């Protein structure tokens, strides 16, 4: 299988400061990778690198052709500005197809269809004309996933998506993501602090702390010394 994204000894950072270095990893179609690590470990920087927003300061990163065309489905951390943003759910989801529209000023019928299909997949058709700011946290996340899926169905990158969700909404969110991954073959790369849920949900774990401390399957992670320490196993 050809990887969607491949990093070889890649480093990312800002203005002469490398935040993460020597990252060697790949995202294969259908993967579910959990990115964990403490604050300041470089998780968000790595994400920016994978999205192509930061150029690698060292090493190399290869992004598959199919992703270059449409961009990567991305669920950013929510910003304060979005809390009271006047926009309908329809407007938000449709904006995910933007890269397909190019310089055409209006959305085509296919793009509208795509937006409708993705709203259906996330069960938010009935919210179509609702205002984004009136939605609950869980509903907002569904809307943003639908938008991301409009960009690409191959890979979703989620940056701390459950921040601010209450526990039941978070569980529901994990169900939605799992469903997309298992039943629809969408590769997932999720940054999260919620390590307990991450090892339950993901297939692979990438543990960062400026460097890659661990990269492999969840089973290997549970048995590794890094994983045991981080998960609070018996030998701490």
């Amino acid at each position, binding site marked *: 299988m050809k990887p969607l994204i491949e990093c070889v000894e890649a480093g990312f950072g800002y203005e002469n400061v490398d935040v993460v270095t020597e990252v060697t990893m790949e995202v294969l179609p259908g993967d579910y990778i959990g990115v964990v690590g403490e604050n300041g470990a470089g998780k968000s920087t790595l994400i920016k690198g994978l*999205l*192509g*927003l930061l150029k690698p300061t060292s090493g190399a990163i290869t992004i598959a052709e199919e992703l270059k065309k*449409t*961009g*990567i489905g*991305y*669920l*950013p951390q929510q*910003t*304060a*500005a*979005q809390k*009271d*943003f*006047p*926009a*309908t759910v329809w*407007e*938000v989801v*449709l*904006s*995910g197809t*933007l*890269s397909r*529209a190019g310089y055409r*000023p*209006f*959305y085509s019928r296919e793009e509208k269809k795509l937006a409708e299909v993705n709203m259906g997949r996330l069960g938010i058709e009935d919210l179509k*004309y*609702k*205002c984004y700011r*009136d939605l609950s946290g869980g509903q907002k996340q569904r809307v943003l996933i639908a*938008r*991301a899926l409009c*960009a690409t169905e191959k890979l979703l*990158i989620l940056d701390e998506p459950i921040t601010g969700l209450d526990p039941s909404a978070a569980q529901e969110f994990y169900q939605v993501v799992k469903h997309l991954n298992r039943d629809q073959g969408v590769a997932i790369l999720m940054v999260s602090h919620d390590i307990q849920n991450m090892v339950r949900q993901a297939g692979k774990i990438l543990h960062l702390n400026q460097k890659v401390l661990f990269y492999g399957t969840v089973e290997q992670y549970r048995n590794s010394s890094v994983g045991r320490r981080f998960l609070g196993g018996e030998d701490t």
Partner: protein
Amino acid sequence: MNVIGEMLSYPFLVRALVGGVLVSLCASLLGVSLVLKRYSMIGDGLSHVSFGALSLAIAFGWQPLQVSIPVVVIAAFFLLRITENGKIKSDAAIAVISASALAIGIIITSLTTGMTTDVSSYMFGSILAMSRADVILSAILSVIVLFLFVFFYHKVFAVTFDENFARATGVKVSWYHILFAVLTAVTIVLGMRMMGAMLISSLIIFPALTSMRLFKSFRGVMIAAGVVSVVCFCIGMVISYEASTPAGASVVVVNLAVFLLCTGLQWVRGR
């Protein structure tokens, strides 16, 4: 209707009305994006910078627009930059820059010409300030702004709603920032001569806030902001003409009244 016919018989009032309507339209459209991106104070900061630049131009006998437009454009870049980097608290940075520009402007004025009517009209606006050249420049500006908002509407939405996502899907976000900075700067320089440096930012902020009370969609808010802004401007001008009140201040008060009305409406509807 009579009043309007009477007003239109004065060439300077026609210029003021045409220029003012165009500038209010631009200000309100740009304003929706600026307010939603939490950049509302930039308008205020830029108008003060513009005042400083104008006092400098008057003191040295330069053409006011030729000096202030480039200076304000540079200031706009600078302000957007610090807001993005987040190194200094951006609201504090804007306050510092605007107060400094104002202070420098006042010192230059008092050392050279003194507080002439020119300077005072830049502070609080003057209905006589719109020259033919200003009207033409306003027309060019509004054509560009309308073109941007019609043909790049979806990109403007994406950049306003979620910069990071827009960037990840390949929108050149920094280009939009530059474009917004330039257009906002020109709008402010043109508008402040009529509205006054102290009052021009209200043209950017009020229509956006008012229409956000009424509409739930981005498109609705955009269109409503344009309409509210133009209507408020015209009512303000009529009041100014009838009651001999300063034009800029009258427009702001009408905007305030409409805002309060809409807030009331929203409150009633929400109950």
